[in-house]
């Protein structure tokens, strides 16, 4: 790996080198490295680009890393990844896409990730997006995440996009079975004239299903963000949506949380707040010896942590 690739990998997967456990590294539209474990098998799809990941029932404390890197300008990469997480397993899946575009043409990655999470399985899915490069070319990331949670399954979904992605359209759909639990934490920072849209459909279908969606975002400069999380409760269930945004400069933020109860026992809550950093917050930090800029960084850093 060269320096650019190493940095992308560090940014999106906290990896200094190839990871332990199962992995599949994709670069500029092609798989470049792969490892299986006795419990986790990665198979290339034959009908379309992408991979199937099979995790055996009962697999505990294993991880799968599937980073995607794009360093070629003008490349559009489209990929389908299907995960089969076996019953009673407990796994960490780290995906992420880093684009280094130093050319003038747009570089783009569209990923469709589908997860079938088996009975009583626990899955943590971490996805980081990152863009860099001196070129004029846009860096575009459009991920779709489709998750089905079986009875008693627990899913934690952490997504973050902190820097350098010109445009992103994210769609997340989760169907929650009986007594399943879902926690989505979404972190987003946009700057310059970047655009980000995040739409979600969460269906609480099984009795006792619980979902919490937490979105924290910062919109700087002339960037714009739209959040549209929708939660539907179809039975005795619990859902909580929380959108919280800091707006700066000439940015625009729209947050439209929507909750729908189709059953008298569904308990659904939504909260949304958009606001600037308060003057007294900056002042307080400055009285502790920070400069105005350090104060702002500290406040934003905490907010997105």
């Amino acid at each position, binding site marked *: 790996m060269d320096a650019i690739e190493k940095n992308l990998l560090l940014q999106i997967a906290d990896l200094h080198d190839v990871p332990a456990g199962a992995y599949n590294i994709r670069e500029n539209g092609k798989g470049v490295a792969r490892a299986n474990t006795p419990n986790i098998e990665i198979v290339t799809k034959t009908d379309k680009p992408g991979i199937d990941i099979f995790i055996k029932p009962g697999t505990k404390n294993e991880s799968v890393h599937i980073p995607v890197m794009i360093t070629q300008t003008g490349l559009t990469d489209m990929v389908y990844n299907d995960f089969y997480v076996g019953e009673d397993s407990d796994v960490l899946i780290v995906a992420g896409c880093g684009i280094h575009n130093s050319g003038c043409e747009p570089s783009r990655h569209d990923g469709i990730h589908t997860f079938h999470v088996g009975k009583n399985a626990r899955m943590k899915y971490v996805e980081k997006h990152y863009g860099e490069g001196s070129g004029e070319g846009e860096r575009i990331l459009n991920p779709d995440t489709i998750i089905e949670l079986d009875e008693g399954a627990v899913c934690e979904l952490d997504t973050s996009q902190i820097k350098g992605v010109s445009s992103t359209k994210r769609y997340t759909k989760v169907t929650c079975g009986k007594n399943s639990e879902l926690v989505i934490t979404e972190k987003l920072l946009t700057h310059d004239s970047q655009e980000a849209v995040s739409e979600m459909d969460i269906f609480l279908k099984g009795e006792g299903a619980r979902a919490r969606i937490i979105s*924290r975002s910062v919109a700087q400069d002339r960037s714009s963000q739209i959040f549209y999380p929708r939660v539907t409760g179809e039975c005795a269930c619990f859902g909580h949506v929380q959108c*919280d945004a800091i707006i700066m400069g000439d940015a625009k933020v729209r947050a439209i949380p929507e909750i729908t109860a189709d059953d008298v026992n569904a308990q659904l809550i939504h909260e949304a707040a958009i606001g600037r950093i*308060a003057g*007294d*917050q900056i*002042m*307080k*930090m*400055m*009285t*502790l*010896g*920070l*400069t*105005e800029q350090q104060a702002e960084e*500290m*406040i934003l*850093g*905490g*907010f*997105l*942590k």
Partner: protein
Amino acid sequence: MLQIRDLHVHVRTDKEDLDILKGIDLSVESGKLVVITGPNGGGKTTLAKAIMGIVPASGGTILLNGEDITHKSVTERARLGISYGFQQPPRFKGIKVADLLNVASGKELSRDECCSYLTKVGLCANDYLDREVDASLSGGEVKRIEIATILARRSGLMIYDEPEAGIDLWSFSKLTETFKTIHETNDATLMIISHQERILQLADLIVLVSDGRIQRSGPGEEIFPEIMNQTEGQCPLVS
């Protein structure tokens, strides 16, 4: 040594022009404990904020150890050794109590060091270090954390704005002990805005601010009994 000469603060709102401070003259020697008291709206917080640089002075001068700081920024004054505990401290989503203490002290504090500052304001450290300083904390908790950050800064001049507000009796007595110790060991100059007898009793100097002016000032032992007498009637000292 803090020297304030003919300090004016003038605020222009969309409706009117307000003279909030109308010529304050005040000298506080290093290591002394001065209590600023007086009726609500008298200008105490504005005076504290003007010393910290949060509110600009529209006239007069402020000297710290002989150096003119009247036009210095908040950051510069903080680094020169002034700290100010807000009357109403702001909250921060995602920032932990330990993070604030670290920033305040300017270094990574050990857990034990953090604990010692929190204990001084009557907080049980282990319950609080990893809590976020957000809306989940009560007013009294945020206030005590605010005071702990000022203690952790160890500035030469510490200004506390109504530290007693919203604090239970036990924590308050812990806090008065802490002020007393700082004062006795000559660690810092303390300026405390307060209405509490137990804090007034600690004062070397009591300054009564009302209607943007110093109405009365003098040694604690002289002013304290006057205040005690006059507050029993209707309106204190001020007419």
